[in-house]
């Protein structure tokens, strides 16, 4: 991640309480190949997700995104599908941690769920936590990413971060 990084992509919008079983169902966890597993992303809540999603897209969600299982496969299948960032009213703690670990920024943006239209293009300033829906041009101010998570993100995920610490 570069200091000034600004992401741009279209929004795919979800409601409250999207749990990790909904992101990827437990019965696919034995699949060792992420590309194969990623075909089943959001299968229950949005069956056409894998057709709609494009590289760089951004997930927008309501409260408590990523609750439930500790499965790291949840942010991994999002990443495999090209998702660049997740914005939500709030995150479940294990998902939040896992997202940064696999290299996807997650930003808490209060009020975002009713400010963004499905498939609207968004600009996200990662360092400042500012989100601009390009349709309305409004400026939504999210929480800043904590220092620890920025470190991990800058390293390119937790594995690289770990290597830099213990090298």
């Amino acid at each position, binding site marked *: 991640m570069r200091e000034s990084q600004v992401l741009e992509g279209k929004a795919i919008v979800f409601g409250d309480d999207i749990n990790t*079983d909904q992101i990827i169902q437990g019965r696919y966890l034995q699949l*060792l190949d992420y590309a194969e597993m990623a075909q089943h992303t959001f299968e229950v809540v949005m069956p056409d997700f894998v057709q709609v999603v494009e590289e760089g897209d951004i997930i927008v969600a309501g409260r*408590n995104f990523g*609750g439930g299982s500790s499965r790291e496969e949840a942010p991994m299948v999002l990443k495999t599908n090209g998702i660049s960032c997740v914005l939500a009213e709030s995150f479940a703690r294990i998902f939040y941690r896992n997202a940064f670990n696999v290299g996807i920024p997650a930003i808490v943006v209060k009020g975002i769920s009713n400010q963004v239209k499905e498939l609207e293009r968004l600009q996200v300033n990662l360092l400042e936590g500012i989100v601009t829906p390009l349709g309305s041009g409004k400026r939504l101010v999210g929480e800043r990413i904590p220092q620890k998570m920025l470190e991990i993100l800058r390293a390119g995920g937790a594995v690289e971060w770990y*290597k830099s610490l213990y090298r």
Partner: protein
Amino acid sequence: MPYTIAEKIIAAHTHEKNVSPGDIVDVSVDFIMVHEVLGSRIVSILEEMGFKKVWDPEKVLVVNDHWAPAPDTESAQIHVRNRQFVRAQDIKHFCDVDGGICHQVLAEKGLARPGMLIVGSDSHSTTYGAFNAFSTGLAATDSAMILATGEIWLKVPEAIRIDIEGQLPTRVMSKDIILKIITDLGSDGANYKSMEFFGSLIDNLSVGSRMTMCNMTVEAGAKCGIMPMSSAVKDWLEKNAAGREYSPVSPDKDAEYSGSLSYDLTDDPVEPMVALPHSPVNSKPVSEIGDVEIDQAFIGSCTNGRLEDLEITAQILKGKRIHKDVRLIITPASRRTYIEAMRNGTIEILMDAGAIVTNSTCGACIGGHLGVLGPSEVCVSSTNRNFQGRMGHPTSRVFLASPATVAASAITGIITDPREV
């Protein structure tokens, strides 16, 4: 500084002088549990990290439980990798497909003790709070870091204090209480927080019933659920962890809590509760849910598959037959549970009533095998999650309840108050 139980345990495991909620601190981990996620993910992450040796092979438990015995070649391959890892790393504690569900096995081996800081590669690792330990779930990458270094960073949680006085009415179980509490809190009501339980009910609960409650704290988003030491825990440790040290942790008198709840079961008894699809925090008293016909009744999992759960089921089913349109699947939480239930005649009563008793595994709980639901089927289950599609087909529906309620429902074919059969 006055500390909650979680703060006190974290403070004892870090070099920081003081800790307060919101601080991110590096802690040393006393014990880690990993299951199939080791073979499916962690091993390759460790390779990528360039790691050679586990920091302490005595402080690791590896379990093959989620798909046990393997129903397909993918699971079989994961199990093979786990066995190879255990051999190569000389891991001291290993439980293969014959042993049972990770959280139950870890407890039975006496590996959760007061004052410890435990991490598991599974969200329900909050269960060990029943033993007055700080324990939480993390995923593959964080588990890999712990295996390599014995350390991890944690955010110090705020705490919610929950006081519960009184006793459980007949056929009301600790499952009913925790379903009520997490429904009162909501799915993110305890997000990032430590849920700390106190009061006469908690002091008098069996170890199994305490584990059920701490197990489900994660459904309200909690980082951990912790209970003070009790005489039941002391007896358990004498039996299962003889000679091993531990140090019970109590909160300081003026410890600060970000919220509190209190329940008095003497004045306001809790009814058997049922969590409606598709969320564990969507519970209502069984008297308010109307007539819900079921296809499957399931008793098992790390939440409610223990001896006391099988025994109350047998008590309700004794001399009766389950409904002709219902299949009752019972999965003891561990091999030891199974053997004890067999020796004391419980299994025989269950099977005479028409139950299918499977080997110990996560199985039906995660929609893996041994009880997967078909389209539009309805299941009443003693497990902890009824997310859409969790136990099978996306159109199936799961209602969570205590083993007593599941047993009563298996007899009548509709979800039933266990006090009415």
